[in-house]
C-alpha cells in the first residue's frame, strides 16, 4: 500500500510536469492571440517579434487609438502588402498588427470564429478565401459579421476598373458589397506546344484556342489527340481539373432559398466526364496535388493542365515541367480554353468591430481601386492584381519578357481576356466548395463504374451533400 501511494504520487508529479512542459511549448501561439489587448501588448513579448506587425509597442498606436489588425492564415500576402503600402504612403509597419493563425486556408474560418468569440479581441480587416468568403460576407452580426464597404467610405461606382468577377464575389447574397480582392485568379488551358504540333498540326496559341474554344470542340480535339497518339496522350490531366473549369460555366447557383439546385449543365457534365474518362482523354484515376500529377507533365501522357494565375510558378506548371532543367520546361503555352474560370483567391472584408476605418479604407483603396497602387504592388510582388487598368499597364510594358516555363509567352495577355470574361453574377453561394467537391466525388465514382446510371450518380451526389450540409432543404429530392 505504501508503495502504491508512492507510485501514485510519482505518477501525479510526472503527469503535472508533463502537462506543464506541454503548456510551455504552445505558449507562444497563445501569446500571439493576446497581443491585441493593450495590456498584453505592453509586455512587448520578444518571442513574437518575427511578425512585422508585432514589432512595436502599444505606445506607437495611431490616432484611432489602436493598430490596424488583420486576420489571416499566413503572412505570404500581408507582409509584402504592408511593406509596399508603407513605402508608398509613409505609414509605418507599427500601425499594423498581424493576427496570423498559421493554418491552411480551409481551417482559418474555425480560428476566426474562436478569435472573434471574444469581443475584446481587435479585428479590422479579415482575409477570407473564395470558398468560404460568403460565411462572413453574409453575416451582419456585431461579433462575427462584416460591414458594408459604403460604411467606410467606398461607393458602388468605385469598382469599375476591377475585374467584374472579383467584385461579384465580394457581394453578399442580398447584393451588398462587403469584400474586395487585390488579386485576380483567372486561369487558362496550358498545353504542350511540341505535342500539339505533332498530333494536331497546331503552330500557334491562336490555332490551339480555335480547337478548344468550347466543350464540344474540346472533346473532339481530345479524340483527335487520342487517335493520333495511339491512345497514349490525354488532352488534359485530371477530371477534377476539368470540373474546376466546367463548373465556372453554370448558370444557376447551387443553392437557391436554402434548396439544392442541380442545373442542366451539371447534369450534362456527368456524360461528358464519362466519355472523357472511358476514352482515356484524361489520365484515369490521377488526382490533383498528388506527386503523380506533377510527374505526368514530364512524360507524353498528358498534353495539358488548367492553370490559374498563381499556378504558373512552382505550385503547378513549373513543377509539372520539372523545374527549369525539366524535360518539358519552356514547351508550354497558355490559351483561354473552353470556359473562362477563376481558381481561388483571397478577399479583404471589414469586421463589424473595426475601429480604424480611415486606415482600412486607405489600405484597401491602395490595393484595389487605386490603379497606381495596384500596379506598384503587381510589380513589387509579381502578383496578378484585380485592377484591370493596373494589369494592362503591366502587360503592355515593352520590357516584359514572359516566363520561362511558357517559352517566353506573355501569359498576362491571355489571363486578362479570361478575367474579363468571367461572369459569376449571383452564381456564388457559401456552400460551393463542399457541393463542388461532393459532385466531383460522385462523378468520379460513376466514371469508375460504381454507379450504373446518371440518375444513380445524381442520387449519390445529393446524399453526399445532404450528409454534410444538414441545414439545406432537400424536400425536392425526397
Amino acid at each position, binding site marked *: 500500500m505504501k508503495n502504491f501511494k508512492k507510485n501514485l504520487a510519482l505518477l501525479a508529479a510526472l503527469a503535472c510536469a508533463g502537462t506543464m512542459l506541454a503548456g510551455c511549448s504552445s505558449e507562444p501561439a497563445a501569446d500571439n492571440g493576446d497581443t491585441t489587448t493593450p495590456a498584453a501588448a505592453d509586455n512587448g513579448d520578444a518571442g513574437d517579434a518575427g511578425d512585422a506587425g508585432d514589432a512595436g509597442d502599444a505606445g506607437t498606436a495611431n490616432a484611432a487609438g489602436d493598430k490596424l489588425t488583420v486576420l489571416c492564415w499566413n503572412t505570404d500576402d500581408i507582409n509584402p502588402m504592408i511593406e509596399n503600402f508603407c513605402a508608398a504612403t509613409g505609414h509605418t509597419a507599427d500601425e499594423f498588427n498581424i493576427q496570423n493563425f498559421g493554418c491552411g486556408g480551409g481551417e482559418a474560418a474555425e480560428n476566426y*470564429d474562436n478569435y472573434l468569440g471574444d469581443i475584446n479581441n481587435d479585428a479590422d480587416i479579415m482575409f477570407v478565401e473564395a470558398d468560404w468568403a460568403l460565411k462572413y460576407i453574409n453575416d451582419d452580426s456585431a461579433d462575427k459579421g462584416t460591414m458594408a464597404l459604403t460604411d467606410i467610405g467606398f461607393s458602388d461606382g468605385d469598382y469599375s476598373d476591377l475585374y467584374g468577377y472579383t467584385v461579384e464575389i465580394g457581394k453578399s447574397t442580398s447584393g451588398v458589397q462587403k469584400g474586395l480582392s487585390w488579386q485576380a485568379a483567372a486561369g487558362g488551358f496550358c498545353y504542350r506546344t511540341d505535342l500539339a504540333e505533332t498530333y494536331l498540326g497546331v503552330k500557334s496559341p491562336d490555332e490551339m484556342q480555335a480547337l478548344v474554344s468550347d466543350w464540344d470542340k474540346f472533346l473532339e480535339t481530345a479524340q483527335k489527340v487520342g487517335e493520333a497518339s495511339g491512345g497514349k496522350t490525354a488532352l488534359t490531366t485530371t477530371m477534377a481539373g476539368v470540373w474546376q473549369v466546367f463548373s465556372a460555366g453554370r448558370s444557376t447557383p447551387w443553392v437557391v432559398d436554402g434548396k439544392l439546385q442541380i442545373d442542366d449543365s451539371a447534369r450534362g457534365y456527368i456524360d461528358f466526364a464519362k466519355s472523357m474518362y472511358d476514352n482515356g482523354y484524361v489520365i484515369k*484515376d490521377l488526382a490533383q496535388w498528388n506527386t*503523380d500529377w506533377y510527374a505526368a507533365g514530364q512524360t507524353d501522357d498528358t498534353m495539358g493542365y488548367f492553370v490559374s494565375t498563381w499556378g504558373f510558378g512552382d505550385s503547378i506548371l513549373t513543377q509539372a515541367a520539372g523545374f527549369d532543367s525539366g524535360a518539358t520546361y519552356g514547351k508550354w503555352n497558355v490559351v483561354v480554353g473552353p470556359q473562362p474560370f477563376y481558381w481561388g483567391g483571397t478577399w479583404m472584408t471589414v469586421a463589424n468591430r473595426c475601429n480604424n476605418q480611415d486606415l482600412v479604407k486607405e489600405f484597401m483603396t491602395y490595393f484595389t481601386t487605386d490603379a497606381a497602387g495596384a500596379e506598384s504592388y503587381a510589380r513589387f510582388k509579381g502578383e496578378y492584381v484585380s485592377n484591370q487598368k493596373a494589369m494592362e499597364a503591366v502587360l503592355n510594358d515593352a520590357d516584359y519578357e514572359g516566363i520561362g516555363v511558357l517559352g517566353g509567352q506573355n501569359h498576362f495577355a491571355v489571363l486578362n481576356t479570361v478575367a474579363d470574361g468571367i461572369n459569376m453574377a449571383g452564381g456564388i453561394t457559401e456552400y460551393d466548395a463542399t457541393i463542388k467537391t461532393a459532385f466531383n466525388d460522385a462523378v468520379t465514382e460513376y466514371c469508375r463504374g460504381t454507379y450504373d446510371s446518371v440518375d444513380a450518380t445524381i442520387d449519390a451526389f*445529393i446524399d453526399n451533400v445532404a450528409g454534410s450540409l444538414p*441545414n439545406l432543404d432537400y424536400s425536392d429530392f425526397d
Partner: protein
Amino acid sequence: MANTSGKRVRSISYAKYGYLFILPFFVVYIVFQIYPLFNTFYLSTQSNGSTQTEFVGLDNYEALLVGETGTISHGDNAGNKGGRAWRAVKSDFMRVMGNTIILWVGNFIPQIVISLVLAAWFTNSLLKIKGKSVYKILMYLPNIITAASSAALFVMLFSETQFGAINKMLMNMGMIADPIPFVTGKAQSRVMIMIIQTWMWYGNTTIMLMSGIMGINGSLFEAASIDGATMTQQFFRITLPLLRPIMLYTVVTSMIGGLQMFDMPYLYKNGTSFTKHIETVAVFIYNHFHNAVSPNYGYSAAASVMLFILTAILGAFAFAMNRDKDQKMHKRKKQNKLL
C-alpha cells in the same frame, strides 16, 4: 493490510501532503479528460450546421441510428420526418461503423497471430536466436515512424496510376495490363490499410507478449519437456493459458485503438478526396467537426458518444470472456463457505 493493523502506531499524518501533491494531477485530469467527456455528451444534444448551437434533444442519435423515418423533435421542423439529410447521414454512419469494424478485425487477427508466433520463437530457449535485441528494435521501428510519414510513403509507392512505383513495376514486368487501384478500390484499399496497420503495430504487440511469456515460470516449461511435451503442446497448454492477462490487455488496448483508428484512413487518400471504403468513425467525427461552412458538432459528438458506449461494451465483454474459470470457482466456494 487489514490483518496487520491490529496495533495502531501513533505517528504524524503525512496524508494531507500526499493529497496536496496529487491535487494538480486531478485538476489536470478534470480539465482535460472529465470536462471534455461530459462536454461531448452535452454537444451531442446540440444542433448542426453552425457554431451557434441550440438544444435538439436526442435528434442526432435518431439521425445516425434511425435515419429518414426518424421524427425531428425540436426546432423549426419539429414533428417532420428526418428526411433526406438524416437518411444520408445514417447511411454514412453505418458505412463508417462497418469500415471501422472490418479494418480493426482485419488488422488485429494477422497482427496477433504474427506477434504470438514471433514472441514464442524469441522467448524459446531451445531455439538460441542470436541478436534478439536487434530484432526487437527492427520490429518496433515501423511504430516509431510517424503515421504521416508512413502514409505518405505508402501513398507514393502504391499510387493509383501508371506512375506509381508498384504499379509501374508490375506493368513493366508484364504482370498486369492496367494499374491496380490500390487507394480507391474497395478491397484493395481495405487490404492496404490492414497491411499497414499490422506492419505498424505487430512489433509493439510482440514485445508485449514476449514480456508476458518471460513472466511465466521457466520450471513449468522444463517440467513439461521432461514429461515429453512437444513444443506445440507446451505452447497451447502452458504459454497460451498463462498469457491470458497480457492477451486481455492486448485485446482491449488494440480494440480501443482500432475503433478510434484515424491517422492511416485519414491520410491514405488519392489527392484530396477520401476513399469511402476506408473512412472510419474517427474520420467521420473529424470531418463533421471541422466542416468549414457547416460545423456539425451534434453529429460528431453523437458519433463519439456511441463509439464510447460501443468500446465500453466490447471492453466489458472481453473482460468477461477472459475471466479465469478457476477464479470464478474459487469465488463461488468462498461464498458457499461464508453461507
